[in-house]
């Protein structure tokens, strides 16, 4: 009998278990792959500075408390703006939807918060939002953001997944050196709206503090 034989032959038993458990995944995930990866016509890939900010977001694990997924309920669209669309995430690797809102959703935070607000808030959240339980992230004002890795990421997704970055994104160090001033330029624009002297000094030295990259990223969430 089929089942009897299955139970006594560990190899075929393992094979059967694998078939049964991969079944749902195959049917649910695979066919939708191509259509879900399509960006909206307005979606653009992030700049290198924003990517660096995304990596700060991951490093300090903002996802532990903040979601980036506005569900289609009136209560959420009133609070956070238009509900999220699949295409808006097409360039997000990894996705950062989060699963817990200890703090508010951030998917469109760029629409209703600005650089100076973030600067004040990251230095001391309860001073801006009384009762806030968010910790301060002072170290982001002194840590240097890794923009080189962010550039490497842009080149990688361009070559591996055809993310539309321009022709100047090449895998060589020379290309990176050529692109670097552009990143610093973006950083300078963000820092111009900030008050922290240390941040301005670092930018002048050709370094991008984590907070500048992070704010660039948060401002790009729209």
């Amino acid at each position, binding site marked *: 009998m089929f089942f009897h034989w299955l139970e006594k032959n560990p190899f075929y038993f393992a094979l059967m278990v694998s078939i049964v458990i991969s079944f749902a995944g195959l049917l*649910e995930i695979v066919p939708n792959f191509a259509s*879900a990866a399509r960006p909206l016509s307005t979606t653009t890939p992030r700049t290198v500075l924003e990517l660096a900010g995304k990596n700060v977001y991951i490093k300090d694990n903002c996802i532990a*408390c903040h979601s980036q997924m506005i*569900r289609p309920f009136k209560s959420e669209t009133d609070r956070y703006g238009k509900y999220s669309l699949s295409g808006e995430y097409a360039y997000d690797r990894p996705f950062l939807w989060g699963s817990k809102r200890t703090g508010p959703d951030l998917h469109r935070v760029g629409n209703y918060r600005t650089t100076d607000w973030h600067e004040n808030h990251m230095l001391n959240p309860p001073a801006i939002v009384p009762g806030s339980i968010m910790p301060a992230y002072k170290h982001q004002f002194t840590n240097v953001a890794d923009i080189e890795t962010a550039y490497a*990421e842009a080149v990688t997704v361009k070559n591996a997944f055809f993310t539309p970055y321009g022709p100047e994104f090449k895998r060589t160090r020379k290309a990176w050196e050529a692109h670097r001033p552009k990143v610093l330029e973006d950083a300078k624009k963000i820092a111009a709206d900030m008050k922290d002297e240390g941040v301005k000094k670092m930018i002048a030295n050709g370094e991008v503090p984590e907070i500048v990259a992070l704010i660039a990223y948060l401002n790009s969430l729209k």
Partner: protein
Amino acid sequence: MQSNAALEYDYTVAKLFTYVTILFGFLGMLVGTILALQLAFPELNYLIGEYGTFSRLRPVHTNTVIFGFTVSGVFATWYYFAQRVLKVSMAESKFLMIMGKAHFWVYFIGALIATITLVFGISAGKEYAQYEWWIDIVIVIIWLMWGVNIFGMIGIRREKVLYVSIWYYLACFLGIAMLYLFNNASIPTYFMTDGLGSINHSVSMYSGTNDALVQWWYGHNAVAFGFTVPIVGMIYYFLPKESGQAIYSYKLSLLSFWGLMFVYLWAGSHHLLWSTVPDWMQTMGSAFSIVLILPSWGSAINMLLTMKGEWNQLAENPLIKFMVIASTFYMLSTIEGPIQAIKSVNAIAHFTDWIPGHVHDGVLGWVVFMTMAALFHMAPRMWKKEIYSKKLMGIQFWMQTTAVVLYFTSMWVAGITQGMMWRAVDEYGNLVYSFIDTVTVLHPYYVIRGISGVLYLAGFILFAYNMYKTITAGRKLTEEPQFRTPMA
């Protein structure tokens, strides 16, 4: 065939894994308790600079509990009971013995390094899959080493029929292997360029909605194949063995197994309800989550019925108490999950503290209770010593049970409150509460959870102490106890 006379089961590897189970259990719960207290008292975020914030510590907590405590508990019990139900000793194969020891050391050192990377914020950014690409490779190697042992042991077994616990452990092995590989597929950026940037960094193979689907297909089933399947396997061995009662219905256990295998994987998309994944997929995830009650409760009822008419044992043996209450929490957790997966309930429950509450009555009440009971059961047989103190075990039982009840009740109320406050509309049709209102209102519940964390951690320290004293100062046993674990 060899003669059985001189042969004995060899618990060397099981012992090693028992030590690290206790170590990682303590660390994971310590960090967890700190996290709980940080939410109630935010000043605690600044104990060790940037490395001590809630956000940085949270993956340390989750990964230490999942990949540290639970997985080493699974390994420890595997190296113990697999020999016994396959009726073959590790000592019979030099190869398996060496592989077993190597498995332990690679695992232990790998786990330590992995934890350190998380503290430094080296993270791939996906929940429960934060480890960067090179740690993933080490994890795959560790997993394969375990696989070698599983199939090696099965290959040289004397018992023809694979006991149902072996089924569950096999499924754990296969399931995690498949899910982990697919979900962690990523490209290291360093090698895609001329050595630009950090060697640690990688980008996910999937993007956006696809990444979310793969991630929660993984995340949900990491719960399935890490927190459910092997623990069910555990209780199917340890409860009958400890009580001397054969499983109430062996057939039901086989049925539940295939049911679990078939249904569990569908349910992953219930983590993505109301998101941008297609509607039909959400509905499927939701519907299958409800069907999932069946195999889960099948196992749990089977366990409770195994103890039918055995009230004496329940009253007198704290180990039986641990296992019965673990089954109870398993039942709670496996009906709570499906109900939270109903779309309307999920609209309230998702993103709130009701979800961590649900997770913790599963993990604290089911996984940790069952693992501790298993280790208590194993200790006298591995070290040939009596359990040091029955009284301590009793105290620990009540402390931890109280802690779990406090945890899930406080998070239950907190979650429902917050979920409803987010939706609340005033007489003008506008939102009533600003976000911060919905945070400050939770303070008392966060304090209760902090207390429950301290209580649970204290109970775990009692457990560790009891184990330590058993190993070092327990009364010597002359022969292996047949069923009930002897304790002083």
